[in-house]
């Protein structure tokens, strides 16, 4: 009953045997099995040298500013320290386990758990607790914590924190390598291109709950094959299609990637539009302001860069629209997806308006991204209904390597090659 079992998300060693090596065929149980999912949390989100995105520096300008964020399924508090740095602590009281912080954003001088008022410094240290030394009644002392109670053993779980040009990352693994090494030299230049030396302005947030496995979103942004086929706007207006100048970049491990491309004039082009039902030959916008693209000096060519920083975040530049897309896994078959759109402090009012107009392309209602959420939902539905089965990611072969074009599924294979190694499957 293993196949069936796997298909139904129930575990068992047999259900998790990945036939053959290579990573061009992904078994459905990799998306549905709860035990696999728990191992993913443990190994990718809660340690083993992995870093997760938690915030943008610009969200927390002042000392004491905090926001609730998530690493995997764990609620964490990201707080700006007095010295301008950041602390990231798990949102769970060490006394009796209360997830004590409930206000999504605020400013705090200390964290007080409401249940018994245990109080923590912004860095997570236990600052004090009521009646630790008991209560004096006459000359006897009633109650109190044992003599050997050591507050240093009862601070909040502290995560390792690093920022990279305004991006705040955290890790449960104290031994995690420096962030730049984690990203690797193939990827960092593309982060630098957007963030280095720039002050960000937060434009706002969009949130969606997508009933699919979290990896499907990573796949989606490592999949240059689909945009010119699923998204009418991309193929019709030449924002992303196979006849553009493109590059697929990944780090040595194959876990992070950048899809880079340069728009063209769109319109008909046998090789990429013939028989493509999503291509709309005569389509034009009633209001061109939706796509009033203005080249920014820092682009240096590429009009779009889609950066996947495994396992937790996507950084997107699509013409004038900029955003981080944070993945919050919630069980094997669902994740929450948080978009934070931003601009730069020196943007003109026109540029800000432009970024906001182009934001209509993205997010849960976006002209070229609402349908990504839909196909992810329906992919999960397909895995769930099937018995044993596997996806086929063999465009451009079965190997893993960067490519100078977008007619490939190599980045997906790269991610699963890495996944198999870490998951030991």
């Amino acid at each position, binding site marked *: 009953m293993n196949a069936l079992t796997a298909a139904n998300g129930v575990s068992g060693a047999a259900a998790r045997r990945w036939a053959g090596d290579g990573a061009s065929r992904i078994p459905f149980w990799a998306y549905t099995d709860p035990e696999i999912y728990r191992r993913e949390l443990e190994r990718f989100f809660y340690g083993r040298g992995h870093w997760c995105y938690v915030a943008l520096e610009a969200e927390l300008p002042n000392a004491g500013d905090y926001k609730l964020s998530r690493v995997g399924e764990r609620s964490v508090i990201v707080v700006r320290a007095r010295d301008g740095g950041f602390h990231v602590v798990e949102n769970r009281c060490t006394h009796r386990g209360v997830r004590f912080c409930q206000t999504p954003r605020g400013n705090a001088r200390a964290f007080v758990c409401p249940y018994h008022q245990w109080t923590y410094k912004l860095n997570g240290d236990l600052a004090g607790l009521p009646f630790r030394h008991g209560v004096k009644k006459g000359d006897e002392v009633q109650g109190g914590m044992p003599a050997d109670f050591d507050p240093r053993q009862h601070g909040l779980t502290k995560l390792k924190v690093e920022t990279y040009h305004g991006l705040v990352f955290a890790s449960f693994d104290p031994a995690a390598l420096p962030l730049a090494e984690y990203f690797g030299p193939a990827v960092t230049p593309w982060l630098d291109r957007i963030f280095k030396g720039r002050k960000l302005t937060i434009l706002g947030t969009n949130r969606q709950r997508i009933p699919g496995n979290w990896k499907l979103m990573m796949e989606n942004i490592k999949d240059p094959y689909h945009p010119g086929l699923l998204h009418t706007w991309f193929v019709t207006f030449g924002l992303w299609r196979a006849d553009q100048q493109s590059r697929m970049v990944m780090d040595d491990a194959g876990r992070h990637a950048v899809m880079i491309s340069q728009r063209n004039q769109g319109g008909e082009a046998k090789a990429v539009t013939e028989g493509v039902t999503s291509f709309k030959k005569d*389509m034009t916008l*009633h209001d061109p302001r939706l796509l009033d693209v203005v080249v920014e000096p820092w682009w240096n060519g590429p009009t779009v860069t889609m950066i996947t920083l495994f396992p937790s975040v996507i950084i997107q530049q699509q013409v004038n629209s900029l955003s981080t897309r944070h993945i919050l896994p919630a069980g094997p078959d669902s994740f929450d997806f948080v978009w934070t759109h931003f601009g730069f402090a020196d943007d003109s009012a026109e540029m800000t308006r432009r970024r906001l107009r182009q934001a209509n392309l993205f997010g849960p*209602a976006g002209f070229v991204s609402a349908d990504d959420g839909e196909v992810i939902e329906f992919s999960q539905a397909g895995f769930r209904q099937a018995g044993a089965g596997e996806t086929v990611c063999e465009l451009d072969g079965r190997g893993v390597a960067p490519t100078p074009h977008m007619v490939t599924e190599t980045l997906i294979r790269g991610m699963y090659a890495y996944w198999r190694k870490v998951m030991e499957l």
Partner: protein
Amino acid sequence: MRPAPIPLTVLESQYRVDQFNAAYGDCLDRGDYDAWIAMFAEDCLYKVVPRENFDAGLPLATMALEGQGMLKDRVYGITNTLFHGPYYQRHVIGAARVLADDGATIEAGANYAVFRTKPGSVSEVYNVGRYLDVFVRQAGELKLKQRLCVFDSELILNSLIYPI
């Protein structure tokens, strides 16, 4: 003590706004998007805004359309370019509060609940919030100069395809 009677002009504005909202929900629920576009002024603003952005004064919306041209582009997206699983919408809208009415322009607000039903599944609470509106009178009819749909349901159930 009984107060001064309500001026008929007040009842009239109230009537028009409530009827407008009833018609608005009806045409969206029937998927009559051309009728929906026609309920806006040529030069209009339509936004679907997460309450957290609205409250924080952040400009980002989930949908932000300026002028009937963009409304048309959205409708084309719904009907021709955006792949999505189809669903029913059902609007239930409370009585509007008319906050200002200078005879030409009416400012008003109303709470709404939109329920989503996908084929073969149960009805869900999809999007609840408040319309913040500016109406203009044109040829004796109201048109939306501005409608902000400020919604509580910030965690959208995957995607938001049709207007709210």
